[in-house]
């Protein structure tokens, strides 16, 4: 299934600016970005990102085994936001930044830790798509869990509709 994520240039810039800020103790910053799921012509899915939530510094938990860990307050906020976004079928995406240029992907830690959040989001926002986005300084990748799916669709393209336009495509290795 084809999956495409779009966002405005303004939103992309705001997320990059926030995620590149130093945190007092975490090695990385994370945030939540909200997106609305719609269909594409060939059965694919399009996620339109709408707004970003920066996680306050004091809602991180010290854990040196991972780049960043957020605490229960941040997760509670996220769940409530998913609940309130149900009418608009607005789902939630965990987002963070790998501070290099070029294509990026999930680290082993990312792959182990982040997908665990998804079933909880799905249980609250059943009709929305939820997922994971990882940005680099000039690229990005993502995974989308559509409603009722246990496996994600690997996002084929992230478009930044700004000036200039950014088109981050997944190079198919298969």
């Amino acid at each position, binding site marked *: 299934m084809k999956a495409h994520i779009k966002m405005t240039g303004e939103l992309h810039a705001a997320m990059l600016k926030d995620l590149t800020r130093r945190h007092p103790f975490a090695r990385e910053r994370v945030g939540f970005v909200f997106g609305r799921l719609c269909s594409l012509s060939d059965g694919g899915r399009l996620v339109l990102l709408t707004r970003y939530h920066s996680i306050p510094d004091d809602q991180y938990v010290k854990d040196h085994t991972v780049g960043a860990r957020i605490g229960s307050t941040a997760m509670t906020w996220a769940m409530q936001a998913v609940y309130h976004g149900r009418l608009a079928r607005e789902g939630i995406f965990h987002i963070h930044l790998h501070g290099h240029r070029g294509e990026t992907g999930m680290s082993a830690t990312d792959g182990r830790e982040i997908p665990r959040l998804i079933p909880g989001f799905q249980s609250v926002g059943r009709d929305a798509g939820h997922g994971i986005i990882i940005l680099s300084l000039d690229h990005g990748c993502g995974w989308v869990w559509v409603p009722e799916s246990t496996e994600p669709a690997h996002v084929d393209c992230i478009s930044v509709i700004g000036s*200039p336009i950014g088109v981050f495509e997944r190079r198919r290795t298969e």
Partner: protein
Amino acid sequence: MSKDRYSRQSFLGANSEELISRCTVGVPGLGGGGSHIVQQLAHIGFQRYVLYDYDVVEESNLNRLVGANLTDALAETPKLHLAKKMIYGLQPKASILGIPFKWQDKPEPLRECQIVLGCVDSYKTREELEIICRRYLMHYIDIGMDVHGKDKPVIGGQIIQSSPGGPCMRCMGFLTDEKLAAEAALYGNAGHRPQVIWPNGVLASTAVGLAVDLVTNWTGRSRTHAYLAYDGNEGTVRESLTLRNLAIKECPHFPLHEVGDPVLVEL
């Protein structure tokens, strides 16, 4: 193919060829304006297209339809076929989704685009295209021309860039209730709008220039919007006077929380 093919446009930036090739452009309407646009996009190196037109070539099109000839008029060649032939002739590996219907009947393919170049002939259709572009996050570049006055004809036209988050065609003073009302009042009696190739060429070229800048940012201007007014009698393209008093920072007509499929709030 020689590496020199795009050497004359290297000023667009070191990665411009790749950036251009990755962008998907939608062109609803392949008539006088659309045929120009498609030709230029193909020359520049755009590879991905979503095209709409349900019409065929007629003799009355031959004064302005780029790529059409007498045989096409006799054979009633679909305009879509003409456009595809033009693109493939320059970009054999192009990916073209050609839809022989009105875009309103099959709008979903447009959602994949980053840029939509509208070459339509009514204010109503322009309004509808802008709405879908705002809903599904696409830059919308609109062109149009008209000729006023019988005794002393005056050619006018516009090239407008309406981008998500920026001022829309209403904000910029182009779309107004008065224009839409006047157009609606003429329904069925609008007749054939005057159309000639050289103004279409100016408008299409300027539109393609805006599109290339959106992709490559070669000017460094990072435009959030544009409204360029064409005076066909003077031969000028100038920023519309309506932009001088534009104080709008966030478009009130298309708030960003209204993106995506329509949300019905039950009462």
